[in-house]
């Protein structure tokens, strides 16, 4: 279970490949990899957004994400999980978060990946501040799932 915060842009595909090559010690054991990538839009609530700053609570963020990963491992038969999350200034089209889960069979990987991203969005102490043309505003809530 690995949690990483990044203050510069990252490539989710490269992260996934590098993790499988270098860190994951489950070669031949997993039959499913499910990943989710959250990417910054150039609009929100009908307004154009130029950039966004992601603030977080250093220390609590990492502990909280590790706890969410441990909860997923207790609930589903998964082999490993990876969360990479941006902090700092983010531009439209930049990846914000990568969540990946490895398991022997697909159901556990799908369910655990969904759990991780939804719990992250409601519990991990990150805050988005959007930059509009001349102003900025704090995002007050995430977009509901449905």
């Amino acid at each position, binding site marked *: 279970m690995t949690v990483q915060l990044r203050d510069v842009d990252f490539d989710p595909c490269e992260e996934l490949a590098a993790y499988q090559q270098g860190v994951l010690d489950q070669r031949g054991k997993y039959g499913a990899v499910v990943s989710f990538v959250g990417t910054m839009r150039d609009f929100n609530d009908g307004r154009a957004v130029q950039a966004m700053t992601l603030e*977080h*609570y250093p220390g609590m963020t990492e502990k909280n994400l590790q706890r969410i990963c441990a909860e997923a491992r207790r609930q589903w038969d998964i082999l490993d999980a990876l969360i990479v*999350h941006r902090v700092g200034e983010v531009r439209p089209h930049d990846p914000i978060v990568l969540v990946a889960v490895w398991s022997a069979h697909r159901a556990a990987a799908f369910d655990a990946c969904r759990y991780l991203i939804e719990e992250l*969005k409601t519990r*991990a*102490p990150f*805050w988005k501040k959007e930059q509009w043309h001349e102003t900025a505003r*704090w*995002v*007050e809530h995430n977009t509901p799932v449905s």
Partner: protein
Amino acid sequence: MSVQIRYFASLRERMGRASDSIDDTTVTSVAQVWARVSGNRSLPVNTLVAVNMQYADLDRAVQDGDEVAFFPPVTGG
């Protein structure tokens, strides 16, 4: 008793500072910490609380050396 207090995001901007420190044996709960640092103002609606980096309620007791954080709803991911 010494307690460190931290504020994040819009609440940090509203407070005009990122942190406070109080040293007062009469402060025994998170609610009392907030009353002390805010000058008895009401806590903004939906504000979340953490004690030592774990979510907590306003009636949670605080002890010497605790870190108490106040922040708005989270919006990561």
